[in-house]
């Protein structure tokens, strides 16, 4: 990433509070795809209100890690506790955990057969049993927040990439999640659109949302993250507070990686 996105306003970091309460606790977690060991001895504790940026080379297991957190992938060893619930195969109500954890994908994954409004109200109506009218009001609120209320009646195919990704964020927010996961939310977008999506994410961070973002947007990391995690070959190689991480990386791998992307 040669250029860094310039943001219009600057976050007052002192306002970004982190509570002592633990939101996610991952202990000695291992995962294999068949015989391929993708995640090795992952230990990670995320407090409520923390904003974590995960970076690392392609194939290092970043996506797999955050997909384990809402159990789109199953892990084989160790424990993952999300919001006090341990994720295990005999967990009956995985949907309950998932409805508390929002996820934004690289390729948006909006439902193309539904309007923007229906995309946003579907899960609240069917999972949370919210009355339709209320769900629509909530959806409108979040669509205004991501600055596209006027597109509510359109279909995803009629929106630009950046707009679609903002709808995807609004769709997750409509479920009032306590944790948000982002998997390279801007890497399928043009520079102009990257900025509008990142600004939405920064706003979210300022409101105290617990966030884990896989991204290579270093500007975003410096602006709001309180920890940057560097992964390589399925392991957490280094983690630090962003300024330290970028200015003074410790591991050789990190240095090499940073020299390539900055």
């Amino acid at each position, binding site marked *: 990433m040669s250029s860094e996105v310039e943001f219009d306003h600057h976050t007052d970091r002192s306002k970004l509070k982190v509570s002592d309460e633990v939101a996610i606790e991952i202990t000695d977690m291992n995962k294999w795809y068949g015989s391929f060991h993708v995640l090795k001895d992952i230990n990670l504790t995320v407090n409520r209100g923390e904003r974590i940026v995960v970076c690392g080379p392609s194939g290092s297991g970043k996506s797999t890690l955050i997909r384990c957190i*809402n159990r*789109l992938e199953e892990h084989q060893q160790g424990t993952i506790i999300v919001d006090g619930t341990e994720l295990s195969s005999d967990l009956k109500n995985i*949907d*309950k955990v*998932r*409805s*508390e*954890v*929002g*996820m934004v*994908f690289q*390729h948006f*994954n*909006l*439902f*193309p*057969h539904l309007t923007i409004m229906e995309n946003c109200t*579907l*899960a609240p109506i*069917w*999972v949370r049993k919210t009355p339709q009218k209320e769900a629509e009001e909530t959806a409108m609120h979040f669509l205004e927040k991501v600055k596209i209320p006027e597109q509510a009646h*359109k*279909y*995803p*195919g*009629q929106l630009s990439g950046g707009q679609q990704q903002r709808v995807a964020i609004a*769709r*997750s927010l409509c*479920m009032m999640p306590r944790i948000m996961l982002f998997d390279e939310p801007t890497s399928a977008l043009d520079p102009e659109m990257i900025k509008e999506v990142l600004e939405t994410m920064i706003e979210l961070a300022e409101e105290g949302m617990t966030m884990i973002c896989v991204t290579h947007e270093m500007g975003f990391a410096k602006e709001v993250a309180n920890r940057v995690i560097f992964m390589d070959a399925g392991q957490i190689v280094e983690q630090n507070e962003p300024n330290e991480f970028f200015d003074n990386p410790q591991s050789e791998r990190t240095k090499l990686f940073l020299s390539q992307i900055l």
Partner: protein
Amino acid sequence: MSSTDNSYVRTEMLPEREAPTGNVGIVGWIRKNLFPDVFSSILTLIALFFIYQLLAGLVPWLTGGIWNASSLSECREIIGDGPAAACLAVIHERFWQLMYGFYPSDSYWRPNLAFILLFAAISPVLFDGVSRKMFIATATVPFIGPWLLWGGSFWAPVTAALGFVVGYFVYKLVAKSMNNLLALILGPLAAIIWWLVISGYVSSGLASVIPLGLEPVASRDFGGFMLAVTLGITGIALSFPLGIVLALGRLSDLVIIKTLCVGFIEFIRGVPLITLLFVAQVMLSYFLPKGTDFDIILRVMIMITLFASAYMAEVIRGGLAALPTGQYEAADALGLDYWQAQRLIIMPQALKISIPGIVSTFIGLFKDTTLVSIIGLSDPIGWVKLIQSNSEWTGVVWELYGFVALVFFLFCFSMSRSSMYLERKLQTGHN
């Protein structure tokens, strides 16, 4: 090269000009589509020649057709030495039999009404403006329709529908108090017990209190296009949900369900329909308890449904495979459970993708119903043979088969058009 050669600034915007003549309008269309170059022009002329030849033979044959005659020989007499003409009298005389078979003529309104109700039932799918309340029609037609066709006590379809209600409540109750899997078994079981054991008493009890019913019509009196349409529509209506279930079963993680579905689909697809129909005609009675009188039309319906559902399952599986995995993941990540995800996210898209294949299967199924003439049911083809075996009309071929073909074509063509309309209606942007 100096830099001025490369830079250019437009000082004046160009006004819109009229398109050159011969590019627009009917002349433009003809030139572009029929005579764009020498080779295409030659092909166009050859095609026009053949079309002319065909129409020159067909149109006088039809327009000069004889409508008033009571036998083929009378037709021939009227034509005499004149130009060849169709003996349409046979269709004039036997029209109602070709349409309804031996169905009692004072009850034609019953199949007609059933047919109209059917359109009411599918209207919410086809048209936006229709009120959602029409889905009530969609739910009741499967019970009212057969009652209209076969007649009998009004309480039979009511108690049959109640079976679903009973099954649903047992399912809900068990799912709430015990677990889902048990509910999945006990719910349908309760419904089956209701249908086989209890519903008979309930319906005769109700009938003795309020006798309400239609004159019963025996299955052997069903015939002509009414029979073809009845078989076709039940086949379509039943094979569609069955196909969805089979497609999902085939993709299931549970090995037993998967094996069962694959086995069923592959077996059915590996066997010709006519074999299944023979099985329906002859063999099914071996498997059933002695003395059970199992309607031949019902048996044929079951076979046609099973046959079509195997094809349907594969068509729908194709649609499912075409969906990006991101759709499943997004549905999961939002906390939708398996059935919600299928119903709200996956199926609407997979079915939309498979519309052309689904409708092809429907059309194929509808035309395949003519095979029942081989096992002795009098569908339109069966009726053509019956009419030809009558000494008055022996030797009439083109008129009868032509008429049957025309009616089949009208049905199939409207199905194909509706499917294109539906596809366009469901089109939502470019992904």
